[in-house]
């Protein structure tokens, strides 16, 4: 899909892009902390906690006086917020380094790699969540190990983003705080789990079967992968892991073969993920920031454990 010129897109994303889910009004009181919303089933008089009556709501929560005034069924329930444990997992694969220099040479200008996009998304989420008071743990899964990055405040996230920007988002080992095995990560408890990956290495079983967490897969792909119309018929294309297989661009493009195959694969992967978790978001470097943020609000996103807006 062609994005209108000037629309902020994800390759420009920084941690400081403000994000405020519509269902949630951040109340800067010391009592409120965190992004997790609790809908307590007890009547309250605070107008901020009122909502329209939905079928099935307890009748005792209905504000009958309000009904008498304007014949609208309004439910008064008390809301509260709590801090939430957020785990961000970045699946580091060699394919994240694509588009590589050869492709850039073809286009004549630098392109946003998937690695860069992944880090931009992860650090943005970290920053925003820390701002709301959630506890954030960021793991970089590399070579069967989990490199942990402890971010205590949103300032930490901002500093880390600046460092990564200087390193062109290739994180050296000394930036990480500690190294853990995958089993430790697997056993660690969390409320929300974000899995950043392009999915080319498949979905790990432990992740699918991880209990007690709302999982969201942010699938990071390059625009050039989603829309392969830039391929040239005369050139040949291959994959490093299977160098024997080499295809002519003309064969791949014939009758939109490649596009259809990618579509099928995405559907399959998405279905596989959604069997166990609630949210799957596909983003590319050309996705508008706004639509990405909107998709985060879907059930299973940052809307929390409770019921989402109807």
């Amino acid at each position, binding site marked *: 899909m062609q994005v209108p010129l000037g629309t902020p897109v994800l390759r420009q994303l920084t941690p400081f892009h403000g994000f405020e889910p519509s269902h949630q009004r951040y109340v800067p009181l010391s009592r409120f902390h965190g992004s997790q919303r609790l809908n307590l089933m007890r009547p309250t008089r605070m107008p901020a906690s009122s909502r329209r009556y939905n079928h099935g709501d307890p009748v005792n929560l209905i504000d009958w006086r309000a009904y008498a005034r304007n014949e609208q069924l309004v439910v008064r329930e008390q809301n509260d917020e709590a801090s939430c444990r957020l785990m961000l997992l970045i699946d580091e694969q060699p394919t994240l380094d*694509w588009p590589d220099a050869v492709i850039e040479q073809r286009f004549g200008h630098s392109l946003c790699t998937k690695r860069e996009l992944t880090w931009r998304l992860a650090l943005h989420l970290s920053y925003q969540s820390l701002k709301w008071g959630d506890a954030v743990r960021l793991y970089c899964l590399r070579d069967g190990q989990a490199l942990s990055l402890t971010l205590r405040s949103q300032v930490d996230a901002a500093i880390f983003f600046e460092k990564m920007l200087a390193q062109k988002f290739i994180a050296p080992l000394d930036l990480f705080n500690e190294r853990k095995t995958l089993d430790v990560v697997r056993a660690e408890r969390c409320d929300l789990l974000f899995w950043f990956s392009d999915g080319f290495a498949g979905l790990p079983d432990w992740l699918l079967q991880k209990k007690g967490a709302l999982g969201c897969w942010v699938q990071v792909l390059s625009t050039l992968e989603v829309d392969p119309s830039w391929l040239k*018929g005369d050139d040949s294309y291959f994959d490093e892991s299977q160098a024997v297989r080499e295809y002519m661009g003309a064969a791949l493009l014939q009758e939109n073969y490649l596009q259809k195959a990618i579509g099928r694969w995405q559907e399959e992967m998405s279905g596989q993920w959604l069997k166990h978790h609630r949210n799957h978001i596909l983003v590319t470097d050309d996705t508008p920031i706004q639509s990405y943020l909107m998709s985060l609000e879907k059930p299973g996103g940052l809307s929390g454990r409770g019921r989402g807006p109807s």
Partner: protein
Amino acid sequence: MIQDVIWSLNAVGYLGILLIAGGLILWFIVRRQKQRLWLPVLRVIKLDLTVLPKFRWIHPPLWPLLCFFLACLALGIYLFEPTEPVIKGDNLDLRPTHVFFDLSPSLALTFSAAQYGEEGQRLLDQLRDKAKLTFSFSTGPEIFTAADSHDVSKKINALGFHRAGLKLGAAVDRLLQKAPDIEHLVIVSDRDQGTWEDFNWRYLEKKMQISWLSAGMGGALPDNVFIDELKPRDQSGFQKNLAWTVLMRRTGQGKALRGQLKAELEGRQLAAHDWQFGPDGKSLEVDIALPQEILLQQTQDKLLVLNWEISASGPGDLLIDNTFRSWLQVQNQKALLISRPRGEMFLDDSVFHLKTSLEVLGFRTQRVDQWSPQPALGMPPTLLLTEVTPESTMRSFCPIEAVSRRANSTPQHDLQAWILPSADLLDFGEICYCFASLLQAPQVILERPAYCDKLEHRDQYVGVLQSLGAVQLGGSVDSPLGALGMTFRNAATKTKILAFTVPLNPMQKGGISFGQLPLMIQSVWKFLSGESTVPAFGSGAVWPRIEDISTSLASDDPATSNVPLAESLLRQMATDQLPPQLSVSSQGIIRQSSLASRERDARPWIYLCLSLVVLAIWLEALGYGFARMFQKQSWVARWFGLIIFISYLSHPDSAEGQVRMNALGYAPLPQLTSIRREVAARTSIDFLESAQQFNSIQRETLLDPWLWVAQPQILENLDRSHWSEVMAWLQRGGFLIVENHGGAQRLKQQILEQNPQGVWKPIPPDHELMRSFHLLASLPQCGQFVWEGFHFDQRIAVVLVPGDFMRMLLDERNPPACFSKFSHEQAVRVFINLLMVALATDYKKDQIHLPEILKRLR
């Protein structure tokens, strides 16, 4: 160029392999140059596509592909000659087949009759059981059957090559009249153009199959040296036999040839001459003299055959037509003229002309004043011609003794005695007496017979001759008065007497002139001597050359014919103009067509293909250049042709031959529409409507060939740099017109200072300005001021106009006061003349068209 190349199958094969190898290498390089890109998506996608093969088709660019295919097509059309086996193995084809053997002399050049016989035998052996075979030779109409085919070799040996030429068209026509059921005609011949040129075998091919078996011609043709023309030298009479000019030619070039030319008469060598061709020599003229003594010994009047033979010294210089025959008539005729001289002016002397005519005809002549009875020395004359004048007596002119003497001998040939009256003869008595004496010889008549008296008139004379039994010569039947002469044959003395009734002077009535005299004498002589079939008087008349043996007359002898020129020249037909070729090999007989479709020659298509290839390569190169220039803008490369086309359309050529009004210091001029119309109607000049107007001298002011200035003061007040520009422009050829000059002494002085060789003078009535287009009587004066011109560099460079001429021209209704007598039409004429002078100066002075004008006037 292409038709000279000889292609062999091996070479084509090697070429093909080389091309394929080159193509593979190229393919490999191109394949390596294709970009390989890492596309990780491929890792997760299950593709049913075939993986890139080891050998794969790379879509080539359009133009090179087209060129390649065109080149292949052209090569294929040209190289591969389709073959068609005429006789397929055991499948016996028993159709009537006729083999025609050409025995024309051009074949004799390359091989002998024995070799030819072997070749013919081999062909007939192959064909014998496979066809209903007949064969014939070009020498005669006889058709042989298969039974005779075993000894065809002997037959050819016996017949040999004939010296007459052969025309296949006529020969085949004759053959088909005799044997119309032939279905397959095999012509064994060479490619000689003389033989083939009249043969339209393509037409005949609709009825039957025609094949050609190439005889001989293993390699390049040897050099043929032959006698093209043989003629006696330009001499008359007996001398003519002595000197001959032989024109020899050769067909080849590049090699020096030498040899000998011999002339033989009845087996006896008369003369020999060495000849030599230089490397570039194509023809040679040899002068050869025959010995007089031998010729004098020959019998009189006999037609002899002179044999000319060429022999070459080099062993390889084989000559087919090394002999050439010509007639030789030994013309030992002698004429004795008896006539008294008529002064020194030979124009008055008709016998002088007669003598000359006889010499032209080959007689040896002798003239005596009067007849003497004693026999002269040497051979006796065969013609006695005597002229009778008024004062001569019979004894002085009448050669009775010469005639009478013949009665005793037995001469083989008749003597002719011609009696000729002179123009001023009044009395025909003596001449009649002489005729009567000759008529009755050897009997002697002592006195003049009575019937010869009182013959004062030609009519009487003719009447007497007729009554004596003389037969009239010339004139109409039963009207002896119109006869040229009267003849009588004296059988006893074997003498033919011819009495002319008119003098042989030029006369209008008789139609006699000195020019016709030899012809008349020749025909009279021929008539009286009864010679008509042989060329009597010309020695060395042309021996017949039989162009076509099949249509030669029965009287012609093909064996002694001179070889026709068409055969001697050895010109060859192109193979594609000949029928499909047969070749006999151990595998059988193959009929091979040089091109599949003979009706359509593929060569123009090949040239077209090659031109397309060149064009395509050129376009490719150009396109590549454009693509390199506009690498980023792909639309430019794609549409460059359109862009060029549009850019061509958007820059039309500006019209030439336009003249613009160039004015300095005028109030804004109106549109020049009317004057433009006038100029366009009268001349072919396109005068622009819009004037170019300036108030000061600028660069653009001096770009036009002329400049109109309103006042002389404008020029007088110019600063030095502008003034020098104007002067330079004038010297370059500018034409300045200054109006309202009013004397303008200062301006004149200034111009004169700059160009001291020029001169100011009033424009005279014969000036070019008065006649450059319209003929003007005068130019209008304004007060006491007249038109003045500055003449410089043989032209008029500045014109000073009195008064406001431009206003006069443009404003018809209100002419200036000083030009009141001057009509608008006159103004237009003056303007056009000015325009002409400005553009072409005095073009009438230029004489370049004079030849054309003179040509037209004549």
